[in-house]
């Protein structure tokens, strides 16, 4: 594929080197069969320490109250909502890869779908921490769910915040079922391979008696199709509803109709950047370079480039509409974003999200691991700042100039952010050693020569 003239009539294999079925099993289940090495424990120690920092910060918060955070009077929504939106966004790549690319029959998704789905689940779990803690009284979270109680207290079905509870929990459930259904044939492979009695019992239970019969596969593929059908609208709806948290309120800078598509594009953007970042390590450490190929990475970079331009378009369109609407307060908000006290955050966001990804126009950069890694890190930083800019700039300077205030996150805020990264990466590390991070069955199905040639049809 190195030459510039490609024959577009020929379909190139997404798996390099035509590996045998057994070698696919061997290489993918190797991390499960071998004991973790020293580096793994070091990485785990780092992520657990990060999680510990977050845990301490949370305990202090619960003891002393949310006054430990930087939230002040106009800026009632500080870092917790920023982190929440950031992590929900990270989760979006997984469902996009597993559901939408499945419906579009993109074969290159097969090598990365399992891992991206795992990341979705962990990212949504991480995101779920923030609504749970943001009131400072997590023991009252039960009231988020509508149930008859002695206070006669019910949830408000008119509130986007409640829609969010249902959108995110539905998203988590569907992603989890999708992930588990995908794992069933792989559990069966592991069950047949292992000689350890305990593992055999566990895999026998989790594989639900899978035998690889075509009568199983027929229903399995239908389940997968139906779940992909459920998950596809969810990819769009979850971040749409997250954006409603902002858009339905009447604050300038939030009350815009572009928010839902803008948030969805941003979510896919940041999600792909995170998946790309982590996969770079996974494919190298576990020798998956022939399964998660450079071509696959390049395709992910193209998606990052595309969504970067969607996000850049949204940034521009926000300014245009503010001007075109003729609403002074709206115009002020956007000038304030770009030139006001948070200009530094705004320009970090624009540089990281719009300018740096443009380097992906160059094929050389799309196909060079260190460059793509750095750009995707910038994207993650930029997307975090995007949520920061949206949340904080609009709140810190709203209609009443006498109540304007500058928001400065405290050390507790940052400790919780660090803790959320620790939580996420701890789960990822445990995932790599307990479950196959690449779907063996799905990869086998897209190896060259795996499907009948249909010559006689």
């Amino acid at each position, binding site marked *: 594929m190195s030459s510039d003239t490609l024959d577009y009539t020929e379909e190139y294999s997404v798996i390099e080197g035509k590996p045998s079925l057994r070698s696919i099993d061997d290489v993918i289940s190797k991390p499960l069969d071998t004991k973790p090495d020293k580096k793994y424990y070091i990485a785990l120690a780092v992520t657990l320490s990060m999680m510990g920092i977050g845990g301490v910060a949370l305990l202090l918060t619960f003891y002393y109250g949310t006054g430990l955070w930087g939230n002040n009077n106009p800026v009632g929504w500080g870092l917790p909502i920023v982190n929440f939106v950031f992590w929900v966004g990270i989760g979006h790549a997984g469902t996009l890869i597993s559901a939408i690319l499945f419906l579009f029959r993109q074969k290159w998704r097969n090598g990365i779908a399992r891992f991206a789905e795992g990341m979705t689940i962990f990212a949504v779990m991480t995101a779920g921490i923030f609504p749970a803690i943001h009131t400072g009284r997590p023991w009252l979270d039960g009231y988020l769910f509508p149930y008859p109680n002695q206070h006669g207290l019910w949830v408000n*079905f008119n509130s986007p915040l409640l829609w969010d509870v249902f959108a995110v929990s539905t998203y988590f459930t569907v992603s989890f079922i999708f992930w588990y259904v995908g794992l069933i044939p792989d559990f069966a492979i592991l069950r047949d391979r292992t000689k350890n009695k305990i593992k055999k019992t566990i895999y026998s239970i989790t594989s639900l008696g899978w035998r690889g019969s*075509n009568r199983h596969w027929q229903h399995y593929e239908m389940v997968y199709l139906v779940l992909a059908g459920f998950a596809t609208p969810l990819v769009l709806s979850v971040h749409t509803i997250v954006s409603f948290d902002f858009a339905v309120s009447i604050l300038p800078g939030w009350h815009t109709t572009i928010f839902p598509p803008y948030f969805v594009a941003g979510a896919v953007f940041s999600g792909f950047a995170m998946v790309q970042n982590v996969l770079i390590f996974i494919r190298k450490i576990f020798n998956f370079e022939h399964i998660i190929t450079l071509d696959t990475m390049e395709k992910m970079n193209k998606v990052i480039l595309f969504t970067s331009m969607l996000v850049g378009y949204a940034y521009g369109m926000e300014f245009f509409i503010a001007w075109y609407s003729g609403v002074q307060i709206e115009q002020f908000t956007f000038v304030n974003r770009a030139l006001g006290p948070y200009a530094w955050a705004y320009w970090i966001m624009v540089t990281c999200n719009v300018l740096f990804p443009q380097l992906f126009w160059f094929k050389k950069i799309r196909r060079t691991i260190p460059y793509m890694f750095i750009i995707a890190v910038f994207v993650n930083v930029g997307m975090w700042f995007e949520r920061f800019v949206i949340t904080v700039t609009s709140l810190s300077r709203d209609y009443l100039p006498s109540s304007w205030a500058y928001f400065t996150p405290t050390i507790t805020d940052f400790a919780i952010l660090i803790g959320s990264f620790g939580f996420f990466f701890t789960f990822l590390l445990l995932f790599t050693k307990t479950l196959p991070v690449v779907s063996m069955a799905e990869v086998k199905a897209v190896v060259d*020569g795996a499907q009948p040639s249909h010559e006689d049809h």
Partner: protein
Amino acid sequence: MDEKILYGYSGLFDTPDEIIEAAEKVADSKYENYDVHTPYPVHGMDSAMKLKPSRLPYVALVVGLSSMLGMLAFMYWITQQIIQ
């Protein structure tokens, strides 16, 4: 001839083309209980084995619609509770 009763046949195939062809032939014959075991779903096997389409989508439709109606009824009931 020995007196053993024949319960069934099994065959091993190396390529997807061969197993599809074998499945077609078995499906066209008078055998009633036959199955194909593959490590991954092979395209065209369902029609080669003459399997009926999976009925799962109908189950999903019924469960999905009834859950949706149930949830709407629940929300209606809650609204009544609040009004009283």
